């Protein structure tokens, strides 16, 4: 027996005749939701950018041979002193090879794993960049440029040239931008390098690499795996590192444990390597939500206040509605629908304003040395935020409208009519 048309018509008339109060209440919601959308799009955009900065180029599992002391010293193998207390001084790390034994079979084994998106071999080595009589220490990493660009967004950090150019060149090098500046080199020039065991090689610069971390850019260069193997004079199966990228980042820890056990190698997962990162993200999200919720609660109190006032003003109307056959529930629905209309209009406007502001921020130039690929402020326009924002607007106005409308429901018409 609820006649929505009549109820909504009364609610509409109440709202329109009190347009000032109505718009004040709606504006409260609009600002709440608008700032929530703006904040959350901007903050998560920044979060994602910062995460990408580190996480995109970090392998989910990094496999290598660690130089470390033997876990079991020879004395513990000797049965005669088993029950004694042994002290070993000056433990030295165990002499082991840098290369991963059987690297190529391990890679093809990992590639078959359903969780693994890709396993890429790398060779890391120390070299000197030679400029006349000056030698500058540095790192040279042998990679598969195309695969690195595909899985670890290598392309984002190549400021001149491209991954393909490196792939197609037999003796090309992707030089760190810091070294290039120090030595005044440009693309197409040649650079002399020398591995630590001697020798001299001339490589052609096919591009520049800029990670955004200045210290790294001053030493790091990349070249093809084959080129490094030739420079070092090693065989084709000489691989020092394997970088694994997974489909699901949560699988990193179990997989790294498994690899350590199975191949007796060191395997570090991304969460262990970058634990502090997640903390920062969580705290930034927490701040965003705390601020937004506060704004919406303030807006909710505004609506509560205005509806309360309205109900006092409309005491006579409520009494006459009840006397002419509107039930308490009808009256409650009249005031509830007013609250919900305010919430709806304010919420939708808030979403629009939030969208506008976020888009505006997205066009503001934001250029920094550290982030070569970013030109404007990062914005993460996730539709989910709009859904959350809108639901929150409706929820807060529902709660703000519920108590006053409950009071209207309980008003005794006889008391009002006789009280005059």
């Amino acid at each position: 027996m609820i006649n929505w048309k009549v109820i909504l018509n009364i609610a509409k008339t109440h709202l329109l005749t009190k347009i000032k109060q109505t718009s004040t209440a709606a504006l409260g919601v609009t600002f709440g939701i608008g700032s929530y959308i703006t904040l959350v799009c901007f903050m998560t955009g920044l979060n994602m950018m910062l995460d990408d900065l580190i996480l995109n180029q970090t392998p989910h599992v990094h496999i290598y041979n660690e130089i470390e002391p033997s876990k079991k010293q020879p004395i513990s193998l000797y049965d005669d002193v088993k029950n004694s207390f042994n002290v070993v001084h000056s433990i030295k790390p165990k002499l082991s090879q840098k290369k991963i034994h059987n690297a190529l079979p391990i890679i093809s084994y990992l590639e078959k794993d359903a969780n693994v998106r890709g396993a890429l071999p790398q060779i890391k080595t120390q070299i000197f960049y030679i400029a006349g009589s000056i030698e500058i220490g540095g790192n040279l990493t042998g990679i598969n440029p195309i695969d690195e660009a595909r899985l670890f967004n290598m392309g984002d950090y190549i400021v001149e040239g491209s991954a393909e150019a490196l792939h197609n060149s037999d003796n090309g090098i992707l030089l760190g931008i810091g070294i290039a500046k120090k030595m005044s080199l440009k693309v197409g020039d040649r650079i002399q390098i020398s591995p630590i065991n001697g020798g001299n090689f001339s490589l052609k610069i096919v591009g520049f690499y800029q990670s955004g971390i200045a210290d790294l850019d001053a030493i790091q260069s990349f070249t093809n795996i084959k080129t490094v193997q030739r420079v070092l004079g090693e065989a084709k199966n000489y691989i020092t590192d394997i970088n694994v990228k997974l489909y699901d980042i949560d699988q990193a820890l179990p997989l790294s444990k498994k690899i350590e056990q199975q191949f007796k190698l060191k395997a570090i997962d991304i969460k262990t390597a970058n634990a502090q990162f997640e903390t920062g993200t969580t705290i930034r999200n927490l701040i965003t939500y705390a601020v937004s919720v506060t704004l919406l609660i303030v807006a909710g109190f505004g609506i509560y206040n205005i509806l309360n006032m309205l109900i006092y003003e409309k005491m006579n109307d409520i009494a006459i509605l009840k006397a002419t056959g509107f039930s308490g529930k009808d009256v409650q629905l009249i005031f509830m629908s007013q609250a919900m209309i305010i919430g709806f209009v304010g919420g939708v406007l808030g979403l629009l304003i939030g969208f506008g502001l976020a888009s505006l921020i997205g066009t503001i130039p934001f250029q920094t040395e550290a982030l070569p690929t970013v030109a404007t402020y990062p914005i993460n326009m996730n539709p989910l935020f709009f859904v959350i924002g809108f639901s929150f607007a409706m929820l807060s106005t529902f709660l703000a409208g519920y108590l006053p409308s409950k009071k209207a429901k309980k008003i005794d018409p006889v008391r009002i009519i006789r009280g005059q």
Partner: protein
Amino acid sequence: MIQLELLEANKMSVVLEAKHINKYFKKPVLFHVLKDINFQIRQGEFTSIMGKSGCGKSTLLYILSTMDTDYEGELFLNQKLVTNETREHLSYLRNKHIGFVFQFHYLLSEFSVLENVMLPAKKLGEKTLQEIEHDAMNKLKILNIDHLAKKRASRVSGGEKQRVAIARALINNPSIIMGDEPTGNLDSYNSENVFNIFKQLSEEQGLSLLVVTHDEDFANKTDRIIQMGDGKIIS
């Protein structure tokens, strides 16, 4: 036999009946307001309730109106027991069978005169909007205020407001119209006017009317006067 039939016919036309109604005010002290009230209102009867201030006549009216449910005894509307019905159902009964006219006009001031009259019918929802609008214009015509239909309720004069309130009370063709001092706030010209409208409705349309009043002239012109004193019906 004939007497029995007469009795039956009588009973058929009883619109409102109160049986052993008792009411107490519990605050500030326990006070017995209404003491064993029994009476009937038949169809087409124009009844007035008179009595001194505080004798409980308004209290009785609000019990009869089903708005006040805190009483002892039984109340019948169109021979159906309404005591202890749910509030929702009572709202429906008020909407369909009872029309109200109060001392103060109680129109919804933001709505037009026509909308005020249409509202109870819209709530009842038995007719289409066009039919309701047509009915409402008819009622306004009967009361000679059809020229005010589009005006805002807050913009018409006191006497006109009371006539709008009567039109609103009539819109669902109720079984009975109740009035709490409907002329109490009007000058003699307008109260005369309102009385004539009531009289006309009762005579021409067979409408029952129950009016609480202080106005002796008004009461003397009605079909029947219920005189109350100290919470009892005296005559």
